[in-house]
């Protein structure tokens, strides 16, 4: 890494770096004031807070609870598949299990995960704002989320929906299970997502600190901004689609019923017009996290900043015109099918731009294999597999063979879990010390990462093979010859389950008992690390930050690795060491 003389002077620019030094420290060694203990006391102060950081933490708690429920269903599904049908549940229960797994993981976990938890927490900090533009709307979005989650949980505990998370008609209008409460839940959750999206768009446009130009924004902010655009443009379509489905079921309006002049394929068009962009609601913010992680832990300026930034917007735009690739076998015109296939290939371009730029950033970087970086690197590995198999599926002839097989299941789990969840968990490990001012046990976190990484690949790579051999998705039972591969996949899931369990314990323990760290344990250059304490004070910054350098200017600035001086808890050593 080239360092010139002018860089060294910037580092010793004491007044600015002093901003991240807390005024004082409390008895536990944490900065005083901080948003956790000084923003009001007791449960009520949390339930009525408009502080974006506290709302992020509230989302963290409920969304992780939903992740746990969805994960239990995943383990049940895999446990059922240790051998052909009837291990744990009958066929109907199995249908309910995979529907609940899909619906909970999609609507209650993965869509809100990065924007609502990490986005809420870091977006204002990264652009030097005191809060999001509409703090009360932000709190409202959390309550709307809880309200929607209540409907989903109602469906779960009464007579869980068994339609698959896509709620395809005509089955969804005819089945006796609790489809309405589940779809109503997803409808309401959509509003929560829209509120977050509106908030982020306005915040990025109007609340940036002086000097924070668009091209000085961290790439996480660009990614959240692109995500917010999709949230705002696509979610209303899901809203009206699910509303039509409910009206169809309750009033028999006939809009999706061919015997009454309607068309069930119209439902699929409407559904995927939302749900394909929604896939990018899930992956784009993950890409933002990866950009920040790769730059921070390579201690190197991100390669091709503008390309990475604009590729997020390109993905957001193209995502709206590829929905037909979910319906290659649903009876569209040949022309439509060809067009959708072609545009689907185009999505590969901005995604590949990102992957190449991240890889190039690593080149000649000074790489620390800290825990967040391990997740970032495993993202690169798995997302590339997920993305390339997406190209297989976008090819018409191949898709006809692979449609509705385990190959699809493996593909989107490689993107959603191997991509988004790895990025999300990497982001949690990255910002955890900022959120709580405490560091987790590195050894335990690394072991958890290893379990997740190995378990994930054992689970889902096996499913590529299963799918290409013709094992259909969503089937309760299977021929004997698939038992070995299914069993292998199921063992992988159990390993991954252990990994996530260990990770949860490690992080939870660290939040309360971890070693106290300084403002900038990673030596990062974005504002939340350089200008705010860990945890930040209630209004984020002592004074509005003046933005002197770009988010990844490692070629100009050597960041200070801050450790608490005489904090009295633990011992100071750089977390990167």
């Amino acid at each position: 890494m080239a360092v010139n003389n002018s860089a060294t002077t910037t580092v010793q620019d004491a007044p600015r770096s002093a901003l991240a030094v807390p005024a004082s420290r409390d008895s536990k060694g944490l900065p005083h004031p901080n948003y956790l203990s000084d923003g009001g006391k007791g449960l009520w102060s949390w339930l009525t807070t408009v502080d974006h950081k506290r709302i992020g933490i509230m989302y963290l708690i409920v969304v992780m609870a939903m992740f746990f429920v969805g994960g239990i269903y995943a383990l049940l599904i895999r446990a059922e598949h240790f051998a052909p049908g009837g291990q744990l549940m009958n066929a109907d229960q199995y249908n309910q299990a995979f529907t609940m797994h899909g619906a909970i993981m999609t609507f209650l976990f993965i869509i809100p995960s990065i924007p609502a938890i990490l986005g809420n927490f870091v977006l204002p900090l990264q652009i030097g704002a005191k809060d999001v533009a509409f703090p009360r709307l932000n709190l409202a979005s959390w309550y709307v989320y809880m309200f929607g989650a209540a409907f989903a949980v109602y469906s779960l505990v009464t007579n869980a929906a068994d339609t698959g998370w896509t709620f395809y008609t005509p089955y969804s209008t005819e089945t006796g299970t609790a489809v309405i409460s589940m779809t109503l839940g997803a409808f309401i959750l959509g509003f929560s997502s829209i509120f977050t999206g509106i908030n982020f768009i306005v915040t990025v446009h109007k609340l940036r600190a002086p000097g924070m130009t668009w091209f000085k924004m961290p790439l996480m902010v660009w990614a959240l901004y692109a995500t917010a655009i999709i949230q705002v443009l696509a979610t209303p379509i899901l809203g009206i689609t699910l509303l039509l489905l409910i009206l169809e079921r309750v009033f028999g309006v006939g809009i999706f019923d061919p015997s009454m002049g309607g068309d069930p394929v119209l439902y699929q068009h409407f559904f995927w017009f939302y749900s394909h962009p929604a896939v990018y609601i899930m992956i784009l913010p993950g890409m933002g996290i990866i950009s920040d992680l790769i730059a921070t832990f390579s201690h190197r300026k991100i390669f091709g900043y503008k390309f990475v930034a604009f590729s997020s917007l390109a993905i957001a735009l193209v995502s709206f015109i590829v929905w037909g690739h979910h319906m290659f076998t649903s009876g569209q015109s040949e022309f439509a099918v060809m067009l959708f296939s072609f545009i689907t290939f185009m999505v590969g371009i901005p995604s590949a731009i990102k992957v190449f730029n991240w890889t190039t950033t690593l080149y000649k970087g000074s790489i620390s294999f800290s825990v967040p970086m391990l997740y970032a690197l495993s993202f690169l590995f798995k997302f590339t597999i997920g993305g390339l198999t997406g190209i297989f599926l976008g090819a018409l002839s191949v898709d006809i063979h692979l449609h509705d097989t385990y190959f699809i299941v493996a593909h989107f789990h490689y993107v959603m879990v191997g991509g988004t969840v790895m990025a999300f968990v990497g982001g949690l490990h990255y910002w955890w010390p900022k959120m709580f001012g405490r560091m987790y046990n590195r050894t335990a976190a690394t072991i958890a990462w290893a379990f997740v990484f190995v378990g994930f690949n054992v689970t889902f790579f096996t499913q590529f093979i299963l799918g290409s051999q013709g094992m259909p998705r969503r089937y309760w039972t299977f021929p004997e010859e698939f038992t070995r591969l299914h069993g292998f996949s199921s063992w992988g899931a159990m390993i991954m389950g252990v990994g996530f369990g260990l990770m949860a314990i490690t992080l939870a323990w660290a939040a309360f008992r971890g070693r106290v760290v300084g403002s900038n344990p990673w030596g990062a250059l974005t504002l939340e690390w350089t200008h705010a304490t860990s945890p930040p004070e209630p209004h984020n910054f002592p004074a509005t930050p003046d933005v002197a350098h770009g988010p990844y200017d490692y070629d100009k600035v050597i960041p200070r690795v801050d450790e608490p001086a005489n904090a009295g808890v633990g011992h100071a050593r750089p977390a990167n060491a």
Partner: protein
Amino acid sequence: MADSVAPAATTEHAHSHPDYVQHHFHDATQQRESSKFGMWVFLVTEVLFFGGLFAAYAIYHTWHPETFHDAHKVLDWRLGMLNTFVLITSSLTFALSIRYLQVDKVKVALYNLIATFVLAGTFMVVKYFEYAHKFHLGQLPGKYYTYTGLEETVNPHVFFSIYFMMTGLHGLHVLIGMGVIVWLIVRTAKGHFHSQYYNPVEVSGLYWHLVDLIWIFLFPLLYLIA
């Protein structure tokens, strides 16, 4: 001397915030621009929300042009016309209330908001009579359709499904708007708004104009397609 030092240490919080400017905004202008921009983004989501129904309308009208042509005659275009007039007038009174707030004529602004509320109520009353008439005749959506006046038409219920979904969703927006207007009336009466601060009235006005605009599309698409 101590007095002169203190403000310098807390420059950020020292500049005086009027109580209508929330703490996280730099000044009133930033707050006004943010709330207006936020409302515009919300209106985009509304357009897309209704867009699903407009897409459904376009598809079913293309598939069943005769059905739409025959069934639309059941609607009374004079009532639709009346409601169009009522709603456009309400947009005018809403806009006037904002204008009067800008020039600090709070009382006149209040009267205009009340007029807006009355006009919105009038719209809903007319809509109520239209709906009641159709319920009476069985011109209902989907499987509840029992009307016997359109025997020659194929699938006439499709038109009424679309009609009730579109006007129903629009009517719901009018009702929500009426709730918002009541809130604005109360706050205006309490003197919360003046020429320096009228954001809530302005952004609610944007919403109200969109509701009006959607009706201006619904009226010809449903009542005037002969």
